[in-house]
């Protein structure tokens, strides 16, 4: 079930009340069994058949984790780890990439004059498979690396893997952060619960008001891009940048807030990425759980940055290309990933790839000219990459860019956008984005952008009510989250 659905609006309060009022609080196993049950209910709501896959993945890694830890022989440990990788990536590869590779093979064969006809299968992509397979894989890898001890409590482990707030679209949690939380009975904390509600509200604002509003603009522009001028297409790319940000960070916020309602802490997944001053900083702020996963389990094993520059470049390109492929079974995602990897070149060669950890405009209200230029450049680069991400094909992406970088970039986009039913969305979306950016900028030094604690209670409540009302007004058609397709 979607977070922005009536079913979830009913599921969550009932689960919350049962969890805190009816569940016996004497044994952690009762707690975890309940979490496991409601998580399976949540996941099975899409398609109950896919529960078998998550059970397979959880079972395999539970037992493999224990076996790796109990085994001292290096070869056997490696074999067991390989088995875990095979099972998880095998499941992922089959359900997500089988048809993609078959189609690509057919295209390649045809271009070489050979006519291969392997069968494509009618495979449905199980929701969240890219996320939970990576989550369980990190568990076994960390055990292999002796950075984490396996658990003997299968209920806690299964609950950790299937924990419903983050099951279908992340954050991809590391066992070291989340699993220990299932070893103890959670206690209700008023401030944490209120913080959770606030985070959920902000996440719903980003999803429903920003992402879904931008989606109605983006869908029209990208579907009929040949009928628009460069300036309209640039607007389309701009709104997509905020659609995907609102969608994905909104989901993460709802996941984090929901987890807090049950007394669990998830890691932050987005940290004001569009205020990044270079691409390196961007990737420390965007989908943090995935980028750190690839850094720890792909980039570092390849040698990371502790190798000659050319190899470092190779490592970056491989990591980002694979990351692109993770996002979807289409060459556009691969191109998007590869392009992001290319963006690192100047940072590597000019030795600017160390993390920018300071907050932008740390000691001033507004950014400096230099920071503004850096923001603009970084945002522009990500915008170009997003065009590949959103386009249906590489050809479409290049055509889209070709039209943007033509004379028509300086034409008025509005006459072409009228009559498409998106005029209201253009206004609403623009206002919502401005509100988002103001909140994020003003609170950039705080833990969370939607920070109103310094305001009087009545003002805070009025703001919460207004946001909740606007969110409900824009509720409309339930639009799925973009990252569910991954």
């Amino acid at each position, binding site marked *: 079930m979607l977070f922005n659905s*009536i079913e979830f609006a009913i599921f969550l309060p009932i689960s919350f009340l049962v969890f805190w009022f009816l569940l016996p609080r004497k044994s952690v196993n009762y707690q975890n069994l309940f979490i496991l049950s409601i998580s399976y209910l949540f996941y099975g709501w899409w398609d109950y058949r896919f529960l078998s896959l998550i059970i397979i993945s959880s079972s395999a890694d539970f037992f493999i984790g224990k076996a790796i830890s109990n085994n001292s022989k290096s070869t056997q440990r490696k074999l067991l780890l390989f088995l875990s990788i095979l099972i998880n990536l095998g499941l992922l590869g089959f359900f997500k990439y089988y048809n993609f590779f078959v189609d690509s093979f057919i295209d390649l064969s045809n271009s070489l004059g050979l006519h291969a006809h392997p069968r494509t299968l009618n495979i449905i992509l199980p929701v969240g498979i890219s996320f939970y397979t990576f989550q369980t894989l990190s568990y076994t890898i960390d055990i292999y690396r002796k950075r984490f001890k396996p658990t003997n409590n299968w209920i806690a482990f299964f609950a950790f893997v299937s924990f419903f707030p983050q099951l279908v679209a992340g954050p991809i949690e590391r066992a070291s952060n989340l699993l220990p939380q299932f070893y103890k009975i959670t206690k209700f904390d008023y401030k944490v619960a209120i913080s959770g509600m606030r985070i959920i509200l902000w996440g719903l604002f980003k999803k429903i008001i920003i992402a879904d509003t931008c989606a109605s603009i983006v869908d029209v522009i990208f579907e*009929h891009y040949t009928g628009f001028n460069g300036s309209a297409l640039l607007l389309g790319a701009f709104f997509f940048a905020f659609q995907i940000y609102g969608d994905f960070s909104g989901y993460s916020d709802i996941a984090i807030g929901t987890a807090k309602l049950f007394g669990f802490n998830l890691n932050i997944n987005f940290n004001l990425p569009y205020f990044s001053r270079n691409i390196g900083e961007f990737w420390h702020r965007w989908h943090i759980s995935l980028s750190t996963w690839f850094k720890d389990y792909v980039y570092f094993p390849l040698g990371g940055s502790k190798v000659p520059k050319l190899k470092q470049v190779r490592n970056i390109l491989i990591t980002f290309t694979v990351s692109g492929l993770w996002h979807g079974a289409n060459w556009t995602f691969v191109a998007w990933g590869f392009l992001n990897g290319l963006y690192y070149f100047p940072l590597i060669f000019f030795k600017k790839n160390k993390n920018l950890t300071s907050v932008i405009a740390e000691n001033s209200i507004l950014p400096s000219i230099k920071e503004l230029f850096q923001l603009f450049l970084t945002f522009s680069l990500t915008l170009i990459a997003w065009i590949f991400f959103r386009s249906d094909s590489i050809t479409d992406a290049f055509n889209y860019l070709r039209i943007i970088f033509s004379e028509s970039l300086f034409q008025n986009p509005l006459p072409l956008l009228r*009559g498409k*039913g998106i005029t209201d969305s253009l206004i609403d979306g623009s206002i919502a984005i401005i509100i988002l950016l103001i909140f994020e900028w003003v609170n950039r030094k705080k833990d969370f952008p939607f920070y109103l604690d310094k305001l009087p209670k009545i003002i805070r*409540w009025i703001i*919460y009510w207004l946001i*909740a009302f606007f969110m409900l*007004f824009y*509720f409309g*058609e339930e639009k799925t989250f973009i990252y569910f397709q991954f």
Partner: protein
Amino acid sequence: MKKYLINISLFTIPFILYFFIILSVDPFNYFNISKIISYDLKNEISNKTHYQLWKILDFENNPSPNIVLGDSRAARLTSELLLELTGKEYKNLAYGGGYLKEAIETFWLADEKVKLKNVYMGVNFNLYSDNELRNLVQDVKSIKKNPFNYVFNKITFKALYRILYSLITNNEKDYEKPQMNKEDFWKYQLTTTTKRYYSNYKYPEKLYREMQNIAEYCNINEIKLVIFIAPTHTDLQEEINKYDLYTDYKKFLYDMISLNVTVFNFNIKNEFNKDTAMYGDPFHLYDYTPIVKELFLETDSLEYGEIISYAKNY
């Protein structure tokens, strides 16, 4: 925990209050229970707030097998006028500022509700384009799904605000009237509006297929489908040549003929359409009575238009 539950309960109070306000006012008669606000006031305000939502919900509450579809020109063929002239009840499901895609979707919605007998569909060239893709009927489908969607959406809120404003101030704003005199609006329609329609004209393959589907469906189910091309002033008719769309216009006429239904074309160069006094703006006549008579009463000779295609069962 107690404090948390109390705060959450207090937080929900405005939403519950709002729900009851909507239930009482019911701007679009979705619930159709409360009679606190008169139908006439809602017809005046909610209709103009969102034609599609008002008319479709009104149709659901009072369906009819005879319908009129189209844009603002077809919308002037009001139910009252048709009843007076034909003696038959017609529900007018044409929308001010409506698009062809919306008319097509409305046909299918109406067909789900009632067995249709007579369908009159206004189709004009300016809407027969793949660039005219707006579809507000999608909003209606989403809103109709459940009461929650109806209560909590901006269209309902907007209509509620306008109704309450009207009641409090005793002042009915005209939400449709352009803020210009006739002469200025005439020029505006011939420049800005036609530019929007014609400068990026694209032949609508999808829309044509959807029209074919409707025509075939009507033939199979013995529904009388009549397409009419509403009259426009000759000043507007000539704009097609300025944008070099004469061939496309002919293709449009040919497409309508190829549907094998009866097609009336009132959009011709005749004295009636040359007369500025007959028109409020280049798109709209002041009085559609003569058009209705020729379209609905099956007279022997036509003065204001011509039949360019006959259906077998006409």
